[in-house]
């Protein structure tokens, strides 16, 4: 049985410097917890975009919370390039470890299986590989002929998985439907901090309709209730993307001053705090 904690207590439990895995904007990021991390003044975070990063990552970078990011892309989708990410790359204040989507999934799946590495096809000839001294190319021992070089990727086990789910049950299981990359992230990570819209009675694992979209409580370290916790990102069939909110962010965050004003209004200021 898991008792929900507050969003601020959850943010406080994430240490500076932690390696944090975040799903992308189409797969249930906890923007609410990202805002709480900005409020607590987190520093030196290392982000892993699974497999890409979006709104929450750009905000955390802009707020100075992030030292490193490993991801296949940072993008605001329809709203364009991620402005604070781009500025940080230009300024050289952010360590960027470029990746490619299936490599992120593969490194997490290796951790999920408890193996030190997993192979992946492709990648050979890309500068991504050339810039990853932690990736290895070996000769495929099962090759029909020749060397057949193939990339081995190391397992990655994030310190903290952070995502938003539709609901938790009385036993601490969380339900997020088909967004199963969040399950892989939770399996691979040392801790999983999950915000939810609501906590409901019963046990999702007893319900055949819900079980397949459920992450077992065994992987869930803490739950916090955050209504509309994915906003401005969509949550399954519960609410859509707030494109105007993202576009407004993209516009304001083009400059450091504009971003600071946005942060004050939406995250730090008294009006923002009251809205949480």
């Amino acid at each position, binding site marked *: 049985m898991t008792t929900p904690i507050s969003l601020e207590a959850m943010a406080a439990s994430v240490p500076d410097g932690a390696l944090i895995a975040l799903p992308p904007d189409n797969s249930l990021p906890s923007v609410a917890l990202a805002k709480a991390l900005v409020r607590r003044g987190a520093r030196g975070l290392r982000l892993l975009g699974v497999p890409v990063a979006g709104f929450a990552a750009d905000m955390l970078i802009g707020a100075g919370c992030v030292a490193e990011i490993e991801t296949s892309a940072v993008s605001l989708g329809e709203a364009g390039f991620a402005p604070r990410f781009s500025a940080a790359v230009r300024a050289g204040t952010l360590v960027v470890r470029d990746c490619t989507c*299936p490599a992120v999934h593969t490194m997490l799946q290796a951790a999920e299986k408890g193996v030190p590495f997993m192979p*992946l*096809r492709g990648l050979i000839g890309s500068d991504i590989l050339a810039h990853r001294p932690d990736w290895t190319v070996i000769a495929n021992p099962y090759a029909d002929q*020749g060397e057949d070089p193939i990339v081995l990727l190391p397992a990655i086990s994030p310190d903290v998985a952070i995502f938003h789910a539709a609901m938790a049950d009385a036993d601490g299981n969380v339900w997020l439907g088909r967004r199963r990359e969040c399950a892989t992230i939770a399996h691979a990570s040392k801790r999983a901090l999950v915000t939810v819209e609501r906590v409901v009675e019963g046990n999702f694992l007893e319900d055949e309709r819900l079980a397949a979209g459920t992450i077992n409580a065994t992987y869930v370290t803490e739950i916090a209730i955050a209504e509309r916790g994915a906003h401005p990102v969509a949550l399954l069939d519960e609410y859509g993307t707030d494109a105007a909110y993202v576009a407004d962010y993209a516009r304001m965050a083009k400059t450091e001053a504009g971003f600071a004003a946005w942060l004050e209004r939406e995250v730090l200021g008294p009006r923002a705090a009251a809205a949480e």
Partner: protein
Amino acid sequence: MSEIRPEERLAAALARLILAPDAPPARHIAVGAASPLPAAACWLVKKQGHPVRLSLLHKRSGNPFTEGTRELFDLTGQGRIDLFFLGGGQIDGQANLNLVGTGAWPGKDVRFPGSFGSAFMYMMSHRTILFREEHSPRVLVERVDNISANGVNEPGVFRRGHAQALVTGKCVFAFHPARARFSLLSLHPGETVESIRAATGFGFDAPDQVPQTPDPTPAELELLRGPVCDEMLETYPEFCARVFDRKIAA
């Protein structure tokens, strides 16, 4: 029929490449690029009655994947994705793609969003159609600053497919993996081999006579403006409003 819009010509050109008889069959196409034109081309092929499965990664409802985003890459690894579309901030004459950025790694000059799955999809899909509307020496370069996904590989490296073609706002190139070089396939109205050379940073081959990219047929236009637009309205409302003058009913 009203005037043919450039986007309609591009969609029809892409559709013809999808159906090219000398290419392996496109039974399952994944469309992940943000551009709506490849999606329009795929819908056009489907509405023409060809039995093709479309996995549209930008569709808001009814996401086809139930293993999360991993499933697209697994599907492609299995060899089930016959055709994919890629673009790039820079594309060079050997069909290398740069989605990372210009200047020193990882994009110290202008940073693009990132490579997404290109380093995998380009090698593991049975074929890829490259699409970039902007045709300029800035985009089509002799050599990309950074390679997100490479156009060809050394012999002995497992690779399932290559670029079939590159479609731009000015022309259609075919790609020849064996010699790692593009050749001019057709010119959009108003373009010449010389105008293309002037706008292109990389060298390419051209036959003596380069045909014009055909107009969409009336049947194609009818499909594009009707049932294709119907399918695209939810995902690409701005595109449908601009190209087809159609808006979602309030």
